[in-house]
């Protein structure tokens, strides 16, 4: 009998040597070991994390380098023996057992490409439950669960599905796996570590709305995820999970994987649809919304990977079980991703309502550098930067919106006290300039001007006037942009100005007192027209 050893196939684990560890194990043990390339458990700072199947259950070791393998084997790795790298039984690691894993329940547990393993760990229970219900009932369950879109905007999934359900004819399910936000990697992990859950979620969506064809739009920066998911699709077809009469039911569903080509904007749903149709990823004006007229003009469900991958659990355990978790209008769990300068980076899946500070300090253990935390960016490049004074904020869509921020896809990027927040604000504008689809002026031109203006502020040229110009630019972008790329770029910029005003004083200048929100509301803000027509809304001045 060969012993089963788990070595993650996850890209993050591979980036720090998991392949070499797996190779060394096989080299030493040959047929005496069965190496399963599982997904990552999400304790990324301990990757490569190796697990051994023992009589006591799985025992974990990490971080294991290829050069540790011989010593571990000599110490009795295959029996789960003690060693300085031993983390104990996996299920008893507090960082893991303290989480509420729902969407990520199987993550790291199963062999990602084994249907048997998938079934043995609760896979297909949600689909079976759904197929036993009318489509309308399934839509109602998803609505009742309170599940909101995890891709950024937090729109209730059930309501979107209901709209698509009510349309006639050919319909599509499009899964948004573009995951362009820095600090986020949950979509990638799911595709690499538990891909059948996404297939199952898309099948449930297809049954619910009456769709027959699905696409997963995956960014090209994730080649390993593409490979695993492409294989998962083939396996699903060979087991009758895709194609005609799924699991012997009336449901027929074909699923295709499409790869993006390096454009952040293609994560915006209408841009993604353009790209899926083989065109430039330029934003479409809404209405019509994709639920009415989406891919090739047909009614289309566009949902994020995590949204769709949560649906099987909602159906398997019931809407009430899911809705029992969370706070306010943010129901269920979020797969938080701790990133950046953080001691314990990785996945914390837990109910909404946990505070930002608990995530960063208690789970994350503060910075990796050991220096004080200074700023945290939540929700990707379009999300706000928060100081420690706001660590009490509960992770909740509405609470974050009230502080001019967003929860977004759940990425949390930590910076220590060496961060230069003027540089971060400048980068937000630079990123927008780089990634703008070019369709509207406030975004395309505004972001370029934004970089220039911030450069002048940093260089202490006419600071007050330029701060006023920057504020006006932000307002024009917020009010006049066609989509949230230009519309939300002011969030990181303004939050940096508001919470970290000291960083905007140039070399040699005396720092002004820390700006209060009021101090940033400069008098006499007449928006200066930026090049071109920026639309009527840009002339509005608030306050």
């Amino acid at each position, binding site marked *: 009998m060969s012993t089963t050893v788990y070595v993650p196939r996850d890209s993050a684990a591979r980036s720090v040597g998991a392949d070499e560890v797996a190779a060394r194990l096989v080299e030493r043990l040959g047929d005496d070991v069965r190496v399963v390339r599982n997904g990552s458990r999400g304790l990324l700072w301990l990757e490569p994390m190796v697990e051994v199947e023992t009589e006591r259950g799985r025992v974990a070791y990490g971080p294991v380098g290829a050069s540790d393998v011989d010593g571990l084997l000599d110490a009795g790795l295959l029996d789960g023996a003690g060693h300085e790298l031993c983390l104990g039984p996996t299920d008893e690691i507090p960082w893991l057992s303290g989480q509420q894993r729902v969407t990520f329940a199987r993550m790291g547990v199963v062999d990602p490409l084994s249907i048997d393993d998938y079934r043995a760990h609760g896979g297909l229970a949600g689909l079976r439950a759904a197929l036993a219900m009318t489509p309308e009932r399934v839509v109602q369950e998803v609505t009742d669960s309170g599940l909101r879109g995890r891709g950024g905007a937090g729109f209730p999934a059930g309501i979107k599905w209901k709209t698509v359900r009510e349309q006639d004819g050919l319909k599509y399910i499009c899964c948004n796996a573009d995951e*362009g936000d820095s600090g986020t*990697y949950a979509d990638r992990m799911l595709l690499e570590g538990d891909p059948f859950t996404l297939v199952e979620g898309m099948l449930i969506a297809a049954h619910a709305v009456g769709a027959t064809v699905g696409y997963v739009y995956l960014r090209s920066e994730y080649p390993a995820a593409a490979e695993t998911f492409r294989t998962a699709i083939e396996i699903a077809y060979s087991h009758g999970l895709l194609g005609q009469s799924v699991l012997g039911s009336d449901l027929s569903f074909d699923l295709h994987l499409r790869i993006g080509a390096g454009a952040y904007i293609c994560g915006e749903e209408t841009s993604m649809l353009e790209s899926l149709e083989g065109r430039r990823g330029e934003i479409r004006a809404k209405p019509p919304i994709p639920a009415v007229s989406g891919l090739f003009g047909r009614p289309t469900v566009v949902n994020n990977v995590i949204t769709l991958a949560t649906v099987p659990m909602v159906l398997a355990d019931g809407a009430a079980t899911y809705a029992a978790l969370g706070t306010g209008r943010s129901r269920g769990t979020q797969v938080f991703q701790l*990133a*950046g300068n953080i001691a314990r980076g990785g996945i914390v899946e837990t109910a909404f309502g946990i505070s930002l500070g608990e995530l960063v300090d208690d789970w994350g253990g503060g910075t990796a550098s050991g220096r004080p935390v200074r700023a945290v960016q939540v929700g990707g490049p379009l999300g706000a930067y928060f100081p420690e004074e706001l660590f009490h904020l509960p992770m909740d869509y509405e609470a974050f919106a009230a502080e001019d921020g967003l929860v977004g896809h759940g990425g949390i990027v930590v910076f220590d006290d060496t961060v230069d927040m003027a540089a971060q604000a400048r980068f937000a504008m630079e990123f927008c300039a780089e990634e703008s689809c070019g369709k509207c002026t406030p975004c395309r031109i505004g972001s370029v001007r934004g970089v220039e203006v911030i450069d002048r502020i940093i260089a202490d040229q006419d600071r007050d006037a330029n701060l006023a110009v920057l504020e006006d630019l932000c307002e024009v972008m917020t009010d006049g942009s066609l989509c949230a790329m230009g519309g939300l770029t002011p969030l990181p910029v303004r939050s940096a100005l508001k919470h970290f005003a000291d960083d905007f004083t140039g070399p040699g200048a005396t720092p002004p007192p820390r700006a209060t929100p009021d101090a940033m509301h400069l008098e006499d803000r007449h928006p200066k027209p930026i090049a071109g027509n920026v639309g009527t809304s840009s002339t509005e001045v608030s306050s």
Partner: protein
Amino acid sequence: MTTQAGTLADVVSAAVAAHRDEPGPLLAILHDVQRELGYLPREATALLAEELNLSRADVHGVVTFYRDFRDTPPARRTVRICRAEACQARGARDLVAHAEQRLGVAVGETTPDGGTELDQVFCFGNCALGPTVEVDGRLHGRVDATRFDDLVGDLE
């Protein structure tokens, strides 16, 4: 031996044929052609336009919209550094500066011997283990200057 033009036309035809039945196949076809040839020569996009019954401007417009597509041959090696926020928090700015100095080129350029191209990416989804660098399609986490030199040294 096939001529260069013959090869090119074959590659384009094969890519078109492989996606003939798919709706909106242009991106998939461009990916296929670039995988085969390493880049998208002008003649290839012209041929593609013809085969797909699109205008050359349409195809050109798509090619230029996406960062992945290129109309010049790639260097023998490609080094891509993540410049997005989570990697910035771990020192990506310094790493980019170091890489530029080490290779003697700016981001977006190829070393004079045509050996190594230095490029940037905004996030590889490895944001807990940055700075992240990709060398010829392989991802490396926690890359500091020393490790970068090791990775690049391996190339020479």
